[in-house]
């Protein structure tokens, strides 16, 4: 059975294809369209998925969209009615947005893919999240918690899943509904702190480490707990339910002071800069408190050892680590793509196992489902441009790359299929030595062009993780997809200065050999040279651009950045001597 899952129209659209219950391809549209967080209909992603399987759209048995557009329309309409007459400005905007396109998903899919409407199905947004979290995890029974901004009505759901020869069951038994949303709370602070919503949440988490939760009591006033252990938002402090202009109210400003102007850099030496850091620390602390409480309650109710966490909030690695440590669950699974893009895969899996009742299949435990990189393309382009191109066998490539990294070079590292999800897990990464703060500053200044308060992540062989980082039981698994933030051991902080955040933590990625053999070998080779098998791993992209996918994109990013070498498969390219050629041609053309 061939099932195509789609997510689109809010942020990070994506497509994923299941053939006989197993994912053969999944990719975010942004990786192909090159528009960061592209939310357009994922036509290129769908085309890629079909190409991988060698099938035409007509051969699909089902196309599953990751949420129910008409239920969502109902929520938007009811929200506008409840806020009447204050919603008069947002109503036309919301209606144009919804009725101009998004409500008519069945027609849009029919018109874009040329498939009959009878083959198009819909899952609920949080069902898709739940399926993406549970059905991709190596567990047969687990509690499931999904948390994000909002889907149709639900903003947070809890339940459990079971799979095995007897079939698959995902039972979501309770939920919290819009406007009461942890995701919206965090996004409101993201916007208040001058960052882009659905993109800047990482920045809030990074900034939090520079502040103290001095305003946590204020944040708790925004989100009082209910008698049954849940929470609600005090809507006097918010405007997202009635305004498209801003999501906080004047009372919110009375509590936390004026919002940050997005154009002004955060200067932590100023009182305002410190206030923003304290705001971030406070909302982060309250988010963690609530998530830990909810997870602890779920653990008590289900008595299960495993928890599968989905939804955009599951990208908060600091909160994830606390859930693992404090909720009572022994293992915590967060998929490589817990956000909305992962719902494309979740929706397809949900339809396969639940709607069609197909037998459970064990999925490969990795997120490498995107397009393959073509090393010959890089060799051709780089040779045309007069760069130094080497073809090297695996063993020498690993040894020489370890030597380059030891000598302080920054490497673009591309191999195999690209990652499905927001993290670069070693197939589309920039790698560097993790020892020196100067390396972090160089990466921020010459390559990533980003705020100094954002940390870089370390990657370490799974068998060595515990030596360098304080990993709780189950922590190594959580770190597989870079989903947890753990303390760097005190004695290693100085030697891992480029990847140790100001609070002594790091968003660790653990690698076992089966997951990424060559990266694992590189870490070992680097460890033999330096005594520390840890590298700095950051996504291979420039500010404002999606992570690279093809060799051409890797090359273009390499040429525009301060990276020293680019490795694609077994081809390595260095920059030396290229600049002169380019400059003379440029000047000749300008003459």
């Amino acid at each position: 059975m061939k099932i195509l899952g789609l997510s689109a129209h809010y942020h990070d659209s994506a497509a994923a294809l299941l053939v006989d219950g197993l994912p053969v391809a999944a990719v975010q549209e942004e990786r192909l369209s090159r528009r960061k967080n592209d939310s357009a209909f994922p036509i290129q992603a769908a085309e890629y998925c079909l190409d991988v399987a060698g099938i035409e759209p007509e051969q699909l048995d089902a196309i599953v969209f990751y949420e129910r557009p008409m239920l969502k329309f109902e929520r938007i309409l009811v929200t506008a009615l409840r806020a009447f007459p204050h919603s008069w400005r947002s109503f036309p905007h919301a209606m144009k947005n919804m009725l101009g396109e998004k409500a008519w998903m069945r027609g849009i899919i029919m018109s874009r893919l040329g498939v009959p409407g009878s083959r198009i199905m819909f899952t609920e947004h949080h069902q898709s999240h739940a399926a993406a979290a549970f059905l991709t995890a190596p567990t047969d029974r687990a509690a499931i918690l999904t948390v994000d901004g909002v889907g149709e009505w639900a903003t947070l759901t809890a339940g459990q899943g079971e799979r095995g020869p007897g079939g698959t069951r995902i039972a979501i038994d309770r939920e919290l509904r819009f406007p009461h949303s942890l995701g919206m709370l965090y996004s409101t602070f993201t916007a208040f702190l001058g960052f882009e919503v659905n993109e800047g949440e990482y920045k809030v988490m990074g900034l939090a480490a520079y502040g103290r939760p001095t305003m946590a009591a204020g944040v708790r006033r925004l989100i009082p707990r209910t008698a049954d252990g849940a929470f609600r938002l005090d809507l006097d402090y918010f405007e997202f339910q009635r305004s498209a202009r801003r999501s906080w109210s004047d009372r919110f400003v009375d509590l936390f002071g004026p919002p940050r102007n997005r154009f002004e850099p955060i200067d932590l030496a100023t009182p305002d800069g410190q206030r923003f850091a304290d705001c971030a620390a406070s909302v982060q602390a309250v988010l963690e408190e609530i998530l830990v409480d909810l997870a602890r309650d779920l653990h008590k109710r289900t008595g299960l050892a495993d928890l599968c966490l989905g939804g955009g909030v599951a990208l908060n690695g600091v909160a994830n680590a606390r859930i693992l440590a404090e909720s009572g669950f022994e293992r915590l699974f967060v998929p490589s793509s817990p956000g909305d893009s992962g719902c494309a895969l979740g929706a397809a899996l949900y339809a396969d196992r639940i709607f069609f009742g197909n037998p459970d299949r064990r999925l490969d435990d990795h997120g490498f489902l995107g397009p393959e990189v073509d090393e010959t393309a890089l060799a051709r382009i780089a040779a045309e441009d007069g760069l130094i191109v080497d073809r090297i066998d695996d063993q020498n490539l690993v040894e020489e790359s370890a030597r380059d990294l030891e000598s302080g070079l920054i490497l673009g590292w591309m191999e195999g299929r690209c990652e499905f999800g927001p993290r670069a897990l070693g197939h589309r990464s920039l790698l560097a030595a993790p020892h020196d703060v100067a390396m972090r500053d160089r990466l921020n200044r010459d390559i990533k062009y980003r705020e100094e308060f954002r940390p870089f992540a370390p990657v370490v062989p799974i068998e060595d993780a515990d030596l360098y980082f304080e990993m709780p039981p189950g922590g190594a698994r959580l770190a597989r997809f870079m989903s947890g933030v753990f303390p760097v051991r005190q004695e290693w902080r100085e030697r891992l200065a480029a990847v140790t955040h100001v609070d002594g933590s790091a968003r660790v990625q653990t690698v076992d050999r089966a997951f990424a053999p060559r990266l694992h070998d590189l870490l070992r080779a680097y460890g033999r040279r330096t005594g520390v098998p840890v590298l700095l791993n950051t996504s291979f992209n420039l500010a404002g651009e999606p992570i690279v996918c093809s060799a051409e994109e890797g090359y273009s990013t390499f040429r525009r950045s301060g990276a020293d070498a680019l490795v694609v498969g077994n081809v390595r390219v260095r920059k030396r001597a290229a600049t002169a050629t380019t400059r003379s041609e440029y000047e000749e053309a300008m003459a």
Partner: protein
Amino acid sequence: MIRKRGRLRRQLVVLGSAFGATGDLTRGLWRGGGEKRLLVPLAIFLCLTGLLLVLAAGVEALAPFIYSIF
């Protein structure tokens, strides 16, 4: 290989499917009972407005004239 269609043709397919989608919404609201049933006439009216919005999105160049239907 996905066959590419022109924007107008795509929008016509969307328009064609909109009646079924409106029917789904109406059925859903009706089954919801109570206050949700009261929303049915408003939802239908807005969906009809939505058809114009779809048309306006399909033929951007004529967008100002399409609204003159009102």
